[in-house]
């Protein structure tokens, strides 16, 4: 059904895709331009910074490819259609999260992964397959945290009946993940490690790739993923109890 929707709105989705590509290209050009004037940023070389940048885009694109459906929940609630979702014999949370996969983001993953591999080559990562394996493991952990953040967002929408504001805070905060966390002061790093875990989502996999991830940081990533995932499921249950149908 989602695929049919894409085919019938080619101009609409083509425009989205164009916007995504422009945003990505401009930011990459800006980073390259900045490195014409400086040799390092917070102690990282050009390709190391690009590894952080690409990892942020990779994780964000995975999130957008999978969870586009949550942007429809508020409208469903407003019109009373969410009553049908909760009363059907299906998992209403899974339906709300995965009802509209974004195929354009899947397409966008192709050039993105090409650039990731190019950066691997430039950094000489292929001589260290353990780092690549760790990178993939922590990308998976980041995806679990992403699932949790989207569950929090959809829970708050169901609870407050306001728009998916929380996910916009996360998406704006992802801008902070485009660069190495060392550019932030310690209190800011703490906030974006434990409260809105952008550093865990982006910097942990990137550091694993570069071979500079500390065991403490790796454990923190596992703990944050655990707490966020199970905490978000709890919040979803509570929000359903507070759901007051707009149509009744």
């Amino acid at each position, binding site marked *: 059904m989602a695929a049919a929707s894409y085919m*019938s*709105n080619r*101009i*609409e*989705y*083509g*425009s*989205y*895709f*164009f*916007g*995504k590509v*422009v*945003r990505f290209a*401009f*930011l990459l*050009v*800006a980073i390259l*331009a*900045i490195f014409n*004037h*400086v*040799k*390092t*940023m*917070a102690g990282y070389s050009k390709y190391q910074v690009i590894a952080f940048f690409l990892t942020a885009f990779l994780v964000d694109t995975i999130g957008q490819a999978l969870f586009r459906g949550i942007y429809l929940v508020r409208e469903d609630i407003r019109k009373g259609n969410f009553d049908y979702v909760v009363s059907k014999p299906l998992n209403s949370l899974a339906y709300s999260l995965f009802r509209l996969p974004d195929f354009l983001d899947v397409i966008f993953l192709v050039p993105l992964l090409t650039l990731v591999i190019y950066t691997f080559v430039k950094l000489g990562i292929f001589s260290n397959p353990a780092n690549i394996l760790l990178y993939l493991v922590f990308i998976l952990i980041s995806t679990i945290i992403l699932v949790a953040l989207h569950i929090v967002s959809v829970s708050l929408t169901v609870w*407050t009946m*306001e*728009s998916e*504001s*929380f996910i*916009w*805070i996360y*998406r*704006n*905060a992802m*801008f*902070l993940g*485009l*660069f190495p966390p060392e*550019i*932030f002061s310690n209190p*800011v790093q703490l906030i974006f490690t434990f409260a809105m875990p952008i550093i865990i989502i982006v910097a942990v996999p990137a550091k694993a790739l570069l071979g500079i991830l500390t065991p403490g940081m790796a454990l923190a990533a596992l703990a944050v993923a655990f707490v966020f995932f199970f905490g978000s499921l709890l919040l979803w249950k509570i929000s359903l109890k507070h759901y007051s149908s707009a149509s009744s």
Partner: protein
Amino acid sequence: MKKYLAVIKTEWQRQMTYRINQFTFRIGNVFDILMQIIVWTAIFQSTSSVKGYNYREIMTYIIIGWLLTFLMTNFGFESIISRHVQKGELSNFLSKPIDYVNYLIFLSIGRSSFSLSVAFLMNMMLLLIFRKNFIFSADIFMWFILVTMVLAGYFVKLFLSILVGFISFWTVDNEGMFYSIKTLERFLGGVYFPLNILPAIFLKISLVLPFVYTFYFPAQLYLGKISVLQGLLGLGTEIAWLAVLYFAMRIVWKLGIRKFESVGI
């Protein structure tokens, strides 16, 4: 005129109802601003100048640029028009003694007056925090051009949004087009970084488009990196864009209304 003032009042009340949305959108803006400040601070740890900008100049560029961009912003007009067209709500306006385009303009003023007051307060707080790194300017001619640019820029952005909204007469949705234009507006406007640090082609393209006159150009004028005369020329280009967009908006409205099927009647 009274009916249009009522539009402003109603919109102000509506905005007060959705306070959480206002707050979270502003938090998003704060992330944008803080990120730029942090990144540039990190860059200036290993150099004292980037493409002719020192640290104070780049901080001023960010703060003044965002302040101006807040003042010129309208909020979500594309989706409002899209909803009116796609759901047939436009028929309500067509049957009333009200000009729809004028209604949109006054609605925008109502929306902006609330949102801008919140955004303005947040920017003033930023200014207070970073005052040591902010360059204050008292050049009266520069301020005159700057204020006129903000006024023109507000309507340039509004007319662009309305134009994108009118695309709904021909397509099912316009969110993608809106996203693309906003992205171009931000990057070709110099919102994330001064355009002259990029390869020269970006600035050349930007100078013939309207976006550059909503952030990069006025910020450069404020910093004294372009002269008052160049500022006047830029203002002229912006006003020319304003006229083009106004006439384009009126023409597209006339063409679109012929296409309108009034869904739901």
